[in-house]
């Protein structure tokens, strides 16, 4: 008779668990794989039926994403000199010529500026506010914290019209600053609450030791509290960035030309004779990358951040 172990799961249950995780991973990743593979298809391949799983990869989607193209008369097309670059050739193969740059690069940069800008601002203000709430005797502390949280209780889009009108009056419509402030306003409650939890966990004695060692309150905050809170800051930053990066509704409503971010732009990529699916997929793929890289870079902190407090250090 073999001893029954409570700590070591049986081989069969390990296999079952592994299989379940693998299955779940496939289901989760399938849309991503489909988007990424579509981005490397040609236009006809992308809409062929039955769908092609094996295909000849092409950069057509990416070239179309970054360019605007035009059809010219057949005799003019025939009279053109041979294409000078690889992307010229890809466009020519579709029977068109490059007319100019698309606005994707610009929209993408807007997303970067607004997404990272508002994340930075949320974390900067959030850390200071969380520190104050955690360490000082703030009058009406509980009410203020509840007030901060309450800004999160209504779906932000419910106040879309007032914000639209307010932004028009203030001249913040379709500006980078306006979008940064808006996303910061939405994120700051999350940031304050999450960070307060993290800072509460840092023993005060560390700062007190620094104060006694001859540092000012702010130096103690910067040199002792901040390094200790790095985990919390990193995970909060990821949450803030994901929201600001993916936000669609306000971006559609408040931006059009100057400060439009990538989410409202990508679906508007229209090809000749219907939606240009490879270009849309290419846009989506590129759009995924920054958050993915940011998350991978900070994933060690993120994991620790999520389980923070659950495990004794």
């Amino acid at each position, binding site marked *: 008779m073999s001893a029954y172990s409570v700590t070591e799961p049986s081989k069969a249950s390990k296999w079952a668990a592994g299989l379940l995780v693998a299955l779940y991973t496939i289901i989760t990743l399938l849309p991503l794989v489909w988007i990424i593979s579509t981005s490397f298809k040609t236009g006809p391949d992308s809409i062929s039926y039955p769908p092609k799983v094996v295909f000849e990869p092409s950069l057509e989607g990416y070239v179309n994403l970054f360019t605007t193209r035009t059809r010219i008369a057949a005799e003019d097309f025939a009279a053109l000199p041979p294409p000078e670059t690889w992307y010229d050739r890809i466009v020519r193969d579709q029977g068109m010529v490059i007319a100019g740059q698309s606005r994707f690069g610009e929209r993408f940069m807007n997303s970067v500026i607004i997404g990272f800008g508002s994340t930075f601002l949320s974390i900067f203000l959030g850390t200071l506010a969380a520190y104050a709430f955690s360490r000082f005797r703030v009058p009406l502390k509980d009410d203020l914290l509840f007030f901060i949280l309450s800004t999160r209780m209504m779906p932000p889009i419910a106040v879309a019209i007032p914000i639209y009108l307010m932004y028009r009056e203030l001249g913040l419509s379709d500006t980078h600053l306006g979008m940064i402030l808006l996303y910061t306003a939405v994120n700051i409650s999350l940031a304050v609450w999450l960070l307060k939890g993290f800072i509460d966990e840092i*023993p005060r*004695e*560390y700062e*007190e*030791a*620094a*104060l*006694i*060692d*001859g*540092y*000012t*309150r702010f*130096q103690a905050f910067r040199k*002792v509290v901040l*390094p*200790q809170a790095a985990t919390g800051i990193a995970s909060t930053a990821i949450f803030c960035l994901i929201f600001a990066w993916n936000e669609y509704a306000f971006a559609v409503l408040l931006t059009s030309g100057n400060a439009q971010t990538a989410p409202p732009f990508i679906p508007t990529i229209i090809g000749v004779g219907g939606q240009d699916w490879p270009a849309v997929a290419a846009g989506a793929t590129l759009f995924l990358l920054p958050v993915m890289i940011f998350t991978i870079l900070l994933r060690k902190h993120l994991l620790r951040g999520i389980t923070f407090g659950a495990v004794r250090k």
Partner: protein
Amino acid sequence: MAEIVIRNLRKEFGAFTAVQGSTFTIRDGEFFMLLGPSGCGKTTTLRMIAGLELPTSGQILIDGEDVSQKPASQRDIAMVFQMFALYPHMNVRKNIAYPLVSQGVPRAEVQRKVAEVARILRIDHLLDKGVGGLSGGDRQRVALGRAIVRNPKAFMMDEPLGALDAEFREIMAEELRALHDRMHATTVYVTHDQLEAMQMGDKIVVMNHGVVEQFGTPQDIYDHPATLFVADFIGSPAMNFLRFEGSAPAGAATVTLGDTPIALPELREAASGSLVLGVRPEHVALSDSAPLRARIEAVEYLGTTQIVTLSTPQGTIKARTPSTLPARPGDLTGLVLNASRLSLFDATTGRAFRTAANAGVNHG
């Protein structure tokens, strides 16, 4: 090094008064204990001296300078925390060097001082280790190193041995005292352990409910407690209290307990009403012929001595007698109290009456 003077120090947190009107002086080079049960205000007092809390009123003078409202960073004081509070993201060397870095000490000087301190504390082999993996005793040494490296005016220690195992505590208590004897640094030490306070302190302040109950040398406090609280808090087993109604004029040298006259040091003031006679267990002797009768209830053998628990009409008494002395539960015997070592308290105020013995002792 410095003398620290505390004058009418008071601290309120909202409606709660943590410390009310403390006054005492810590002389230059003294190892000074703040002793009391938890919540008595001893840590708040220490934190006010260190500058981590600002007093509601009153004064703190360090070397004659009023620092009451100055931030901690400007007081030139070092502190050892109960949980050590070593900076977890720095190694041992950086932890010890950190107070010097804040003063802008040149790097070579920092290295030299850190090395010197590490040698004194015998932690030179740990300098490049992280603080996470250190044993309790070594963490304590690093915390001490961080405190002494700067040559501050005074050291604050908040139950520095509280987080250590019993075994380490013993060793570190000795090391702390040896370090103090070598450096003669004014040290303020918070503890709730009366043995630790007696063992290490030059002077002790006993606090309770934010009030200084007594202030003096360990001997004074042990032999002549100023209040019932101090008498009960210091010593193990605690002082015996015999409660009775009676009166005695100033100049009297006996009180009557039941029908038995008990000699005690000459009273310097009149006592009457509900009184409490205090006697330490070691000042109770058993004698079959003594008029104060008692019955032996239990005997605890402690090696060279034994604790004999006796019941008397005035309550239960514990006596510390040589273990060679025969004592069997159930036996009737008599008690002899060492007259020169008795204290008489007022049961309502808890205060000790002035006698010939405690005349020179500071009351709180």
